[in-house]
């Protein structure tokens, strides 16, 4: 049976098929944003043609399909979500708009000229209902069902499509929320109903409510898409399981995902780090920085000692998203990023992007702003005749005219300006890497840079040079990197329970009961995904903090029945982790447990990457042509290699270019590239 991973992006749909033998085959087709299921099926049809099968025969032969999509992210960013209402505890309906008084941190302290916040549910669609639960879980006021009925009839009148139900302290006792959801589902036919205790069962109402509101906002569209996708796939002959890639690096059934749409925000990029981890294992590296440079965004993830980091600190646009996500940091930098001159005469690049429409000037689709792709073309890095394997012809004259727009005020020629754009965007990306790593106190120079995305291999080695990173790994599947990550990851889910207690007063039986409950739930879920429970691998963590701190540090918890003795080990681990993260620890201070977490995974199927033929160090047989490139201010004749003809063991001395159908690798002077057995490019500084 085959396993298929499909990542639907804004521009391209990437499909990666793993055969029975564990071999991978990649297919790239255009996305169809108006009917995403169509693009999904098109990519499968392309794959079926490759295997000389009908789509039906291919689908009959697939046991697991994993699907990542930008649908939820795009729905939120473009503001095309459902007409959403919110029902909350009476007296508190503005908490999601007051937003803890936060001014967007990306706006300077000294700038007051900013538009007010637009919440996803406007105030007139936010209703308070009489009900109250305390932090102890005690219900001091049951849900007033008469009031709720009145609200529901208002919602009907307003033709609401989605409802977020958000009550105070529902994480401690969801009784009132559950009842309200039940009544809404019964009486509001077809509405998407989201409850805060189900979406994010932890304390802190602003963060919980905000996540729930986002869920309601994108949920109707996402669930509608999943339902129609599954239907079409089943009709086309899919018999196997369809799993959805979630933003926390785990996977879920379509049914579950359709009810927790917020976990689809950032679903695709969350998979990339798993791909990097796999390649790190293959090449013997534990500390990795993965980058994925596409058209508009640049995603970074720092993996230290094989650990894929997660965060609960995310903002999506103006909205706080406190669900646990793979900590992929996104910056507005990509092939489409536009260059401009700021108020103080400095060259800036991005975050505005020319996007797919009109795209960079050199695409000839009407774009006139200078973009990174235009600069890359003028510098000789991109082939005008072999961009995406020749699917798009690039126009150098249009690129030059665009780049001159910023060149003139800087008193630079087109090529000089192109190089300035190239260096500036690399600096932006390098800073974005530093930002993520420095916040954790890591030195980027200790890491291997793993480069994915269509534009990644053009810029990666230059970014590495800027940051003094000695080694860059450019995977053979860099152009379909997220889909590769989906193939390379374990299938799993996670669970959380809040129990706030000082470590010295913790009721260890209660902790054991919580884990028991979560583990039973996990087993049930794994079974429902069609895996034997014997395959489950469990891991536990707890969010802990020093007494009276406000933020938690995630520490490891041992498996099995916990005893008082385990608490000491856990606390020692916490002190160590705090020191690692923040430069100090305080063994003299009390410590608290906040949230206990469980992760249940089923190990992935073994992948056998296809080996390429081996050859000598001499790569001259793959030499395709020569091209003039601008490197460090000089025009240099650079050999261009055909990636398809390279052999394992080939060594290429920079400066050099390797052309692949879906990407171009640029190797500057002072770097040397070795091709490995699986056609990954390992680039080292000399």
């Amino acid at each position, binding site marked *: 049976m085959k396993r298929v991973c499909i990542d639907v992006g804004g521009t391209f749909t990437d499909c990666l098929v793993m055969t029975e033998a564990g071999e991978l085959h990649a297919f790239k087709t255009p996305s169809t944003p108006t009917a995403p299921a169509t693009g999904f099926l098109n990519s499968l049809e392309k794959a079926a043609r490759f295997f000389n099968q009908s789509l039906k025969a291919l689908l009959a032969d697939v046991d697991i399909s994993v699907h990542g999509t930008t649908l939820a992210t795009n729905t939120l960013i473009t503001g095309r979500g459902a007409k959403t209402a919110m029902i909350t505890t009476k007296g508190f309906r503005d908490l999601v708009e007051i937003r*803890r008084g936060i001014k967007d941190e990306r706006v300077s302290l000294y700038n007051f000229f900013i538009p007010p*916040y637009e919440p996803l549910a406007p105030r007139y669609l936010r209703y308070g209902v009489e009900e109250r639960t305390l932090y102890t879980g005690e219900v001091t006021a049951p849900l007033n069902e008469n009031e709720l009925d009145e609200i529901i009839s208002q919602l009907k009148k307003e033709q609401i499509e989605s409802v977020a139900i958000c009550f*105070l302290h529902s994480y401690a006792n969801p009784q009132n929320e559950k009842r309200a959801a039940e009544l809404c589902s019964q009486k509001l036919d077809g509405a998407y109903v989201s409850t805060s205790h189900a979406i994010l069962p932890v*304390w802190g109402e602003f963060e919980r409510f905000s996540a729930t509101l986002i869920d309601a906002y994108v949920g109707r569209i996402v669930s509608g898409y999943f339902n129609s996708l599954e239907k079409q796939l089943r009709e086309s002959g899919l018999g196997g399981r369809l799993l959805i890639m979630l933003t926390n690096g785990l996977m879920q059934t379509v049914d579950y995902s359709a009810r927790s749409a917020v976990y689809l925000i950032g679903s695709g990029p969350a998979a990339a780090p798993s791909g990097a981890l796999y390649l790190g294992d293959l090449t013997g590296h534990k500390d990795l920085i993965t980058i994925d440079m596409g058209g508009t965004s640049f995603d970074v993830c720092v993996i230290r000692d094989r650990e894929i980091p997660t965060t609960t600190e995310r903002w999506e646009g103006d909205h706080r998203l406190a669900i646990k996500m793979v900590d992929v940091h996104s910056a507005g930098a990509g092939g489409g990023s536009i260059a401009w001159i700021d108020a103080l005469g400095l060259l800036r690049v991005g975050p505005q992007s020319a996007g797919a429409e009109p795209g960079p000037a050199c695409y000839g689709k009407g774009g006139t702003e200078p973009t990174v792709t235009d600069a890359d073309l003028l510098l000789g890095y991109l082939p005008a005749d072999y961009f995406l394997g020749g699917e798009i012809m690039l126009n150098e004259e249009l690129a030059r005219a665009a780049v001159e727009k910023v060149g003139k005020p800087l008193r630079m020629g087109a090529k000089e300006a192109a190089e300035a754009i190239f260096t500036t965007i690399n600096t932006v990306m390098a*800073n974005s890497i530093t930002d993520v790593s420095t916040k954790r106190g890591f030195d980027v120079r200790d890491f291997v840079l793993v480069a994915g995305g269509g534009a990644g291999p053009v810029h990666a080695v230059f970014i590495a040079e800027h940051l003094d990173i000695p080694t860059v790994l450019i995977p053979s599947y860099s152009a379909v990197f997220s889909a590769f990550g989906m193939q390379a990851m374990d299938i799993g889910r996670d669970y959380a329970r809040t129990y706030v207690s000082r470590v010295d007063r913790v009721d260890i039986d209660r902790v054991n009961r919580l884990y028991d409950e979560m583990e039973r739930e996990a087993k049930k879920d794994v079974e429902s995904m069609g895996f034997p429970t014997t395959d489950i691998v469990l891991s536990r963590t707890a969010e802990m903090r020093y007494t009276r*701190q406000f933020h938690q540090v995630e520490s490891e918890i041992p498996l099995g029945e916990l005893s008082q003795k385990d608490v000491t080990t856990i606390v020692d681990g916490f002190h160590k982790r705090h020191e690692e993260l923040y430069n100090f620890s305080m063994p003299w201070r009390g410590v608290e447990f906040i949230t206990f977490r469980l992760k249940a995974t089923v190990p992935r199927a073994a992948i056998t990457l296809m080996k390429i033929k081996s050859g000598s160090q001499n790569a001259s047989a793959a030499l395709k042509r020569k091209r003039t490139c601008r490197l460090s201010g000089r025009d240099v004749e650079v050999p261009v290699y055909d990636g398809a003809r390279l052999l394992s063991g080939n060594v290429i001395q920079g400066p050099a270019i390797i052309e692949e159908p879906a990407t171009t690798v640029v190797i500057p002077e002072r770097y040397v590239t070795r091709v490995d057995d699986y056609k990954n490019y390992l680039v080292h500084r000399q």
Partner: protein
Amino acid sequence: MATIDPITLATIWHAMQTHCKEMRHGIDRTAQNYLMAQLHDISVGIWDAAGRTIAMPVGLPVQFLGTAFAIRDLLKKFGNDFAPGDVILTNDPYHGGNNCHLPDWGFFRPVFYKGKLMFFTLARGHQEDTGGSYPGGYFPNGFDIHAEGICIPPVKLIKAGVENQELMEVIWNNVRWPEGVKQDNYSMIAATKKCEQRLIALLDKYGEETVMACLDEMISRTEQAVRAEIRKIPDGVYCGEAATDDDGTELDVPVWVRCEATVKGDEMTLDFSKSDAQRKGFINSVYAATYGNAIAAAILTFDPSIADYHNEGSMKPIHVIAPEGLVVNAQYPCTVGASPVAVGIQVMEAVLEALSKARPERAMAAWAKHRGHYVFGIDPRTRERYVQTSFDYDGSGGGVAGYDGYQGISALTSMGAVTRGNVEEMEIRIPWRMLKYEFAPDLMGAGKWRGGPGVHWEAINEGLEGDIATGSSDGDEVLGFGAIGGQTCPPCRTYIRRGEQEIRVKPHRLVHIEPKDTIVKLSSGGGGVGRPEERDPEMVRRDARNGLISIQSAREIYKVAINPVSFDIDFEQTKELRSKTAPKWTDLGKENF
């Protein structure tokens, strides 16, 4: 002189900003006191060895924009006696500390490179306690500064990496909750250390000469940009004034801050000489604090596209005059406890009012006043003493030319750098249960761009008896200004509801509370900008629909007739209403209002 390319310039510049933000992030994640960790009552920055301001991306102006004065005094006091690994602590407004009030403890770290003093970095934050008569630092009736808490002049808490244990013991022995304060102190010290590491790495990478050349270049570019902004203001003298309700000692007598902004060519002088004399009560501001607020207010009116760059260069063309002995330049041993709020807010308001007249296209109105209070009591669940405060009770931002006031943002002197707490977090931490926390309709200044909404906040005491100090609040009597025809912020009110009784509590008071007392706060929103009858009727309709303004206000203040059931605009009636009051009004439905 090193030659600098634009890329290195941008890189070094942004690195400085990033290092500051990283310092703040570290404190944010590890501190234990509500004000610092949760509400971000912290400031961070980098200055060079001469005290020039290099980077000041985030903080409260009163805490850090006047830090150059402190650094010059440090240099005077210690001369060459600085070493790598030194950490200097001070919270003193006087004696060379130049600090705004005692709860804001500042940790300075000199940064050396190859044996040479290059920079100072500072992390300053509001401690859980600083001693004195009452917890919290907002005690309205102190005899002098010593009643407000422990005064720590600039002292080396850590000398070349070695902690001065005895000094630490003296300091921590003089505060309540010493364990918590100790934890926060270590959090701040660790953050300055991180910044030192980053600065040294930057110097290693680019070399001292290049780094300093880039900083000089950025300061000079910023100065030119600020001068260009000032040139856009017509030469002249512009006046603004604002008052705090009283000084907490001489009750119900407002204390005035007056600013004369004189613009001449590319320089600006902010002269506070006509302000009231310093008072016995705790509303006095030292010069460095006044300077910080005044500079911040002036900067706010400049083009936002230079907002990311402010540094020493922004300050050079702006002069701040505040004669000694006035409420804006208090002298030892004057009390200063409330000065970040009162008269700190008034200093900013006076400058903004003056400059809004000077540049209507950049006008902005007053923000909602800070409505803070401190509760001290005993938590029956733990039998431990607690002190509670937050920014939750505050209204919103004021309107600006072009946008309505930002919702929920707290007090002008915070500039949006502080945040609010969570209801659930508060109910877990202290024995109070929240009853209401919502926008209050019609409680904002109307305008073409109205103020952000006011807030209605109620909570019931489920603990034992205790006290409440309303020192950190203002705005019952003297109202925040509206700009270019916009309305002022409406008055705020605080009550204690005890059974049937509603007992009004004014700002700057200290009152007793009983179990089951409910604190009720009606905090106004921000002021408006531009005449309300020029507001886009569609925006008026939206506000009415959202219940932020009443149908009656829409009609009487905004002159827009709205159907109370359908919320449709009656354009005919609106046209008539507006024709009476707004002669400019010509054609409804177009974008010219």
